[in-house]
């Protein structure tokens, strides 16, 4: 049974690879539009993840440590993007950044149109992927013994110092895992991104565009290239996380 599940996961990917010739793959890799879209996708997703972390980590800590009225409701709100159809998430984000929205009008004052910008792509990516970071970090903070934070307080540390020097380092494996998940989820997002920004094209949108305009043969090499890059980035980040975890294991 387990073998069948593995086959189900691996077969489409193997099919994708075996039906793409090396010359086609190199041609796709040399295509400037493909290179630009990959750069845009990875860059915006990474930047979005880093910016989101500044806001998401304190929220995750709050969810792990504090009991307050409406906490269950807040957790439900955090999880909403996970259960929303991504096209609906895109429509929701579009409503917030379109020219007739408050944010859109503000940007308009400076001659900017948010729709169809890297900003829009980042917002769409963050909207669908931020729950992965918050939930993973929350679990990490929850696993840090409260006693250690209390000990630091009695030694004279401010709550912010306790967060920075005790809670965050001890929750590091979960926080890193959350960052990787958010980054990976953001860069692979299609449904929400295509609604807020068809151009500039992220790679998932480019793959869809090539398939729609020219057919499977043109879309496949780009898809293979993006899968390879995604897997390499994912493995790299996981290895980094594992190294961090190993170091932590040694000292824990």
């Amino acid at each position, binding site marked *: 049974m387990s073998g069948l599940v593995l086959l189900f996961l691996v077969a489409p990917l193997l099919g994708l690879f075996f039906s793409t010739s090396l010359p086609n793959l190199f041609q796709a890799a040399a295509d400037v539009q493909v290179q630009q879209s990959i750069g845009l996708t990875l860059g915006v997703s990474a930047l979005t993840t880093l910016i989101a972390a500044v806001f998401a980590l304190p929220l995750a800590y709050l969810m792990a440590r504090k009991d307050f009225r409406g906490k269950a409701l807040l957790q439900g709100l955090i999880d909403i993007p996970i259960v929303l159809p991504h096209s609906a998430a895109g429509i929701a984000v579009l409503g917030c950044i379109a020219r007739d929205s408050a944010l859109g009008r503000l940007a308009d004052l400076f001659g900017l149109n948010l729709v169809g910008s890297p900003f829009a792509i980042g917002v769409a990516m963050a909207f669908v992927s931020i729950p992965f970071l918050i939930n993973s970090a929350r679990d990490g903070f929850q696993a840090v*013994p409260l006693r*250690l934070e*209390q*000990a*630091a307080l*009695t*030694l*004279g540390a401010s709550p912010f110092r306790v967060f920075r020097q005790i809670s965050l380092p001890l929750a590091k494996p979960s926080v890193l895992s959350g960052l990787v998940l958010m980054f990976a989820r953001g860069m692979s997002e299609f449904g929400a991104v295509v609604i807020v920004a068809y151009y500039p094209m992220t790679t998932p949108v480019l793959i869809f565009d090539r398939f729609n305009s020219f057919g499977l043969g043109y879309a496949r090499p780009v898809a293979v290239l993006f899968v390879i890059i995604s897997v390499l980035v994912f493995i790299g980040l996981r290895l980094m996380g594992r190294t961090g975890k190993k170091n932590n294991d040694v000292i824990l």
Partner: protein
Amino acid sequence: MMLSCKEVEYSVGRFRLRPFSLELEKGEYCALLGPSGSGKTVILELIAGLRRVHKGRIMIEGKDYTREPPQKRPVGILFQDYALFPHMNVYDNIAYALKISGMTKPDIFRTIQASVHELDIVHLLDRFPDTLSGGEKQRVALTRTLMTHPSVLLLDEPLSALDAGLRDASAALLKKLSSDGLTVLHVTHDPKEVELLAHRSVTIDP
């Protein structure tokens, strides 16, 4: 009066602490006795500021600390599980409070060197907490707490996790701290510890 708890009240969930009062003179060693669940540890946490007092007052050296956060109280606490920071070696654990106080690195080094000889942990400075024995952990945690020069030292069952040999050594160390003039409140459920160490004892009813 070094420590004065006046009609302190606290409740959480189904637990309710009866109005609690205690006065400790400077240098006094007081044992807090009581069965499990009577709220002995809760009293230490209230004095340390880790829980918020519902009613009553906590005064230390004549100053009202009832509403002060833990980091502002002149109180050191030795937790039952020692609560050493697992991602820091022994040196960094001990240096933690000194760094917060803004002491320079050379001064921190000198201060630690002076203390670790006294508490016989000089050979442990590079080790991480998970490689230490129970007795070593306790000495490190005690050294770390003493770095803040607390007016009152709170001990939560400090001898209960140690085997007989270590227990005697640890008791001798606590006795020495007390004879050096430190005010100590020692939570225990063992009357032998009271007899061995304390000037007097207070019993908490469940």
